[in-house]
């Protein structure tokens, strides 16, 4: 099993939240406390308590200057979770278990930061039973996690992810996508396009058993988790190399697409390196 998730996962954003509500993130709201942002005349910012004497005196026109401070605002954190058939893969680890761990940690981190947390689970449609609407409450978190851990993905497709992207709202928020990203190129592009207004953190869940540690020789019958189609494979080094080349090509396409739309994707293979994930999120870029 994976290492027990740490309680907190501080995440950073490099943009300013427009939310009015106070929070832990940089904001477009200016207020009385927090980081110094700029100076304004009293006419612009009618808060005589924050008159900056030094600037006022320095002003040859004798305008009264007031110091403006940046308010800390909250943001919305949304986890888009791919629960299509392929996420049911159980190789070196259960992909759904990894996804549930991530959900647990992000939910806790968002709560701690005072942000809202929402989760949308989707395959070819959004699963309302698994999804959680934006909330700051802890109520329902246990139920959500239990449901996620128990869920056995069976349906195909990931078009529901695009649908879920539409539910997030127009206000810029942090969107974490947890998926194996085994979507078609068209679907991938549609998904990133739908999320273009948000800060997107793609987390790709992979497994060594589906690529790196494939046997070099042998016979096996594969059953596609999405389509149920079967295929007999006579594995040999040449074919294995070919497979790995294809898988790598797919991954490369995804990485370049993700980078174009925002953050570099974070990749999880078999187990979640929490410290690296923390660093990745803290970097904010």
């Amino acid at each position, binding site marked *: 099993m994976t290492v027990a998730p740490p309680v907190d996962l501080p995440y950073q954003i490099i943009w300013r939240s427009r939310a009015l509500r106070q929070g832990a993130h940089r904001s477009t709201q200016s207020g009385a406390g927090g980081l110094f942002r700029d100076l304004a005349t009293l006419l612009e910012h009618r808060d005589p308590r924050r008159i900056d004497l030094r600037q006022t005196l320095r002003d040859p026109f004798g305008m009264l200057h007031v110091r403006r401070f940046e308010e800390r605002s909250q943001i919305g954190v949304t986890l888009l979770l791919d629960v299509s058939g392929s996420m049911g893969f159980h190789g070196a680890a259960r992909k759904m278990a990894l996804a549930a761990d991530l959900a647990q940690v992000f939910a806790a981190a968002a709560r701690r930061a005072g942000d809202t947390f929402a989760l949308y689970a989707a395959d070819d449609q959004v699963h309302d039973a698994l999804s959680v609407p934006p909330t700051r409450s802890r109520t329902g978190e246990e139920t959500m996690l239990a449901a996620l851990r128990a869920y056995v993905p069976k349906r195909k497709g990931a078009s529901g992810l695009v649908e879920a992207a539409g539910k997030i709202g127009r206000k810029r928020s942090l969107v974490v996508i947890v998926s194996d990203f085994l979507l078609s190129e068209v679907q991938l592009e549609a998904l990133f396009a739908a999320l273009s207004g948000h800060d997107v953190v793609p987390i790709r869940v992979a497994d060594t058993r589906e690529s790196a540690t494939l046997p070099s020789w042998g016979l096996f*019958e594969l059953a*596609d988790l999405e389509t149920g189609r079967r295929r007999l494979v006579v594995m040999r080094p040449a074919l294995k190399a070919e497979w790995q080349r294809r898988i790598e090509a797919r991954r490369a396409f995804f990485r370049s697409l993700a980078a174009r739309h925002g953050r570099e994707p974070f990749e999880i293979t078999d187990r979640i390196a929490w410290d690296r994930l923390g660093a990745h999120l803290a970097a904010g870029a």
Partner: protein
Amino acid sequence: MNFGLSTPMVLLLLPLALLPLLRSAQVPQNFPSIEDIETDPVSVAVDWVLRLAGALAITALILGIGGLHGLGRTIEKTGEGAHIVLLIDRSSSMDNTFAGRAPEGGEESKSAAARRLLKDFILRRQHDLVGVAAFSTSPMHVLPMTEHKEAVLAAVDAMDRPGLAFTNVGRGLALALDMQEADTSPAARVVVLVSDGAAVIDRKVQDALRTAFARRPINLYWLFLRTEGTPGISSVPAPGEEDTPQAMPERHLDRFFKSLGISYRAFEAENPEAVGHAIAEISKLERSPITYTERIPHEDLKGRAFAVALVGLLILLAAKLAEVRLVPATEGA
């Protein structure tokens, strides 16, 4: 070669052979996505080999269980022989010896002697088709034309049972001709009449026989088992005696046969040796080419069917041994 099944009902099981085409014997292993991995021709070929091996094994087992065999064939061969109808007199006088007494001690009745020699004759004639008819008061169809020697021997064996009262040669001959008529092959046709006497043939029956004999060539042999001291075929009436069929039936029957214009020979035998000579003579004469059928017994192909099934199973077993797991079973949760 044609094939047959002892239990054709097993063919109802044949759809089972489609099962391997639907599902393989390998353990399906889940994989996230195989959709964009191109199919590999080697794998596809091996896949079909395995499916067909499974279908082959099931089919071969079903056919083997059903008792697959190569049908017995009959090959036409050419040999020497004829299609013979034995027309046997079963009147009670046949039960006597050649001396005209009831057999006693080591003596052999006429029918017993004839039976012994006829059986010998049948056994030596390999390719003949033989039918048996009997006559006494009425004609009796005994055995159809057959190549089953055992059956013919059994019919000849029955001839020394006590017979009936009269000798109705005419109707007997008509029956023998009927039996030859039913046979359409171009083989030489022979009627061997075995009797110890003759009788008057009705005018009507005579005419019928004449037309029947005229219709197709038939070689007629009359093996006349003459009792010592009775008039024979070649006896001429003593002066003053009547020369009528009633008085001298043998002489007149012989004349009737000669008048038919067919290949006809009469053998007059007064003792078992003479009967033997006559039969040997008939055997010598009837050596025209004949197409006969030789049966090739049906060949049991069960073993071969099972061997084919074994080949299929070994292929499947080899595939099973080559099977690997992406995820070792020991890691199953």
